[in-house]
């Protein structure tokens, strides 16, 4: 799979827009363009194979389904996952002759993407550190009362950080990816221990993504019940995701009604007491 400099540069531009302090903004940059599923669509469009792009994107999306960045600490960088990991995984699949639709193809995509994503945290800290320079300019502008300069500081200067830490690394790695993947392929045969481990890791990694999410919503052991309810719906009963969401919504609705009723109860309870008191007076 030959990737031209132009294709690599377009993917590099999307990396600038999508990362955590990304230039597409939080909602559209990070939470839209940065999601591996969307990255898969865009890389697929740029590289001329939408189907593989989406399949690779879906495989990697599960690992990063809950990429929460509490207090700005990251365990993986979305620009690296979605715009270095996805294209490299696409190249690797082509090179190994695997279909992106097969479990093996998905496992390969997952381990490639995660490896790159974890290394990508360097890019995150690089960008954030370089932004300190622009913020320094910003502080002196505020002190001088030169407020309009803040627009440059917040929205324009960070492009320089991104050209260095998003655009260039992405473009170079995507462009050089194909020969690198070929090199790996020649040294590591598919039935060897290393590749078998890599594929197995690829199948295990999504568990971490789901577990990160569970950490958000599970406080006590009983909180696992909704999770296993959903798991059973899909695994044992074969219910698809949209249907499972509707069933879940029904339970959530019932729960909400019950909670609201119990909120109203103290008021109703005191009314009853009042009524009883009145009755006693009557007697």
């Amino acid at each position: 799979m030959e990737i031209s400099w132009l294709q690599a540069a377009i993917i590099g531009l999307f990396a600038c827009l999508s990362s955590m302090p990304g230039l597409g903004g939080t909602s559209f940059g990070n939470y839209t363009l940065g999601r591996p599923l969307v990255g898969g669509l865009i890389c697929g469009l740029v590289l001329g194979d939408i189907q593989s792009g989406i399949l690779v994107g879906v495989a990697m999306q599960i690992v990063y389904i809950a990429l929460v960045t509490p207090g700005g600490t990251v365990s993986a960088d979305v620009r690296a996952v979605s715009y270095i990991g996805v294209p490299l995984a696409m190249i690797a699949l082509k090179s190994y002759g695997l279909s992106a639709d097969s479990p093996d193809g998905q496992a390969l995509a997952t381990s490639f993407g995660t490896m790159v994503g974890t290394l990508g945290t360097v890019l995150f800290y690089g960008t954030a550190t370089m932004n300190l320079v622009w913020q320094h300019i910003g502080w002196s502008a505020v002190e001088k009362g030169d407020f309009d300069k803040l627009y440059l500081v917040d929205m324009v200067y960070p492009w320089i950080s991104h050209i260095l830490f998003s655009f260039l690394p992405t473009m170079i790695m995507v462009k050089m990816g194909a020969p690198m993947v070929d090199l790996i392929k020649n040294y590591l045969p598919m039935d060897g221990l290393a590749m078998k481990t890599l594929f197995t890791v690829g199948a295990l990694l999504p568990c971490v993504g789901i577990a990160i999410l569970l950490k958000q919503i599970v406080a006590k052991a009983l909180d696992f019940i909704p999770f296993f309810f959903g798991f059973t719906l899909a695994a044992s009963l074969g219910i698809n995701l949209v249907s499972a969401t509707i069933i879940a919504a029904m339970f959530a609705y019932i729960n909400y009604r019950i909670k609201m009723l119990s909120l109203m109860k103290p008021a109703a309870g005191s009314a009853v007491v009042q009524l009883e008191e009145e009755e006693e007076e009557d007697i």
Partner: protein
Amino acid sequence: MEKKISRKALTKAFNNWYYGNLTCFSQEHMQTFGYMVSMLPIIQDLYRDDKDAQMRSMNTYRTFFNTEPQLGTVIVGITAGLEEARANGQEDVDDETINSLRAGLMGPIAGIGDSLVVGTLIPILLGIAMGMSTGGSPLGAIFYIIVWNLLAYFGMKMLFVKGYEMGGKAVDFLVGPQGEALRESITMLGGIVIGAVAASWVSVTTAFTMTASGADEPFLVLQDTLNGVYPGFLTAAFIMLCWWLMAKKKMSPLKVMLLLVVIAFVGVLIGFFDPGLNY
């Protein structure tokens, strides 16, 4: 005459926040610059010819700020209202009032936003989108792009306006008992959907078999046995293991991933895992 922030300035303030809340992120100041850029149109509008007042008010927002930026829009709206009150000479609104309110709200809003928006809403949308993209169809990705952005934009716009109009009352709904009932229900919805996502998209299987000497067929195919007990048993077990390591043993996700590499390596060595690949 009573001062009022012009519609134009309010819209500009919202747009500045919507786009620029994290564009100039650093570990040291996080969303501080996004906040200043967002308050700038409001301050310039309220104190059009009074440079000293502009200086004073901009100084207020130099204080560190960081929260979940999407739900946090409500805080920006509230401070817009407070700034308007200060411009009208309300004496009890000063630097301290504004900044203690910001500092007091950014923690709880970050917690609610991280768990509801990033931890529940986005995964549910992505889960549905992945289902629609089975087989490599771009439909799911397009669905996510459209639905998420409409929800994010109009949701944030509403939070901003409500914050500006209602002040502190706007957050009562989020942190009050009714908000808590709603939050708990949405978390339940999220939990069920995540379970379905895990069962549909994560698949951990074992290749372990036992064959009696001389027999052609193995008498134990572990994967089939486990499926007979509970379909997806190994997947659920590995998810629980990862959760336990992170939540109870306080391991970082990165360390858990490295541990999985070790488990995979050992598993392949003893024949527990075998992706069954060859050329």
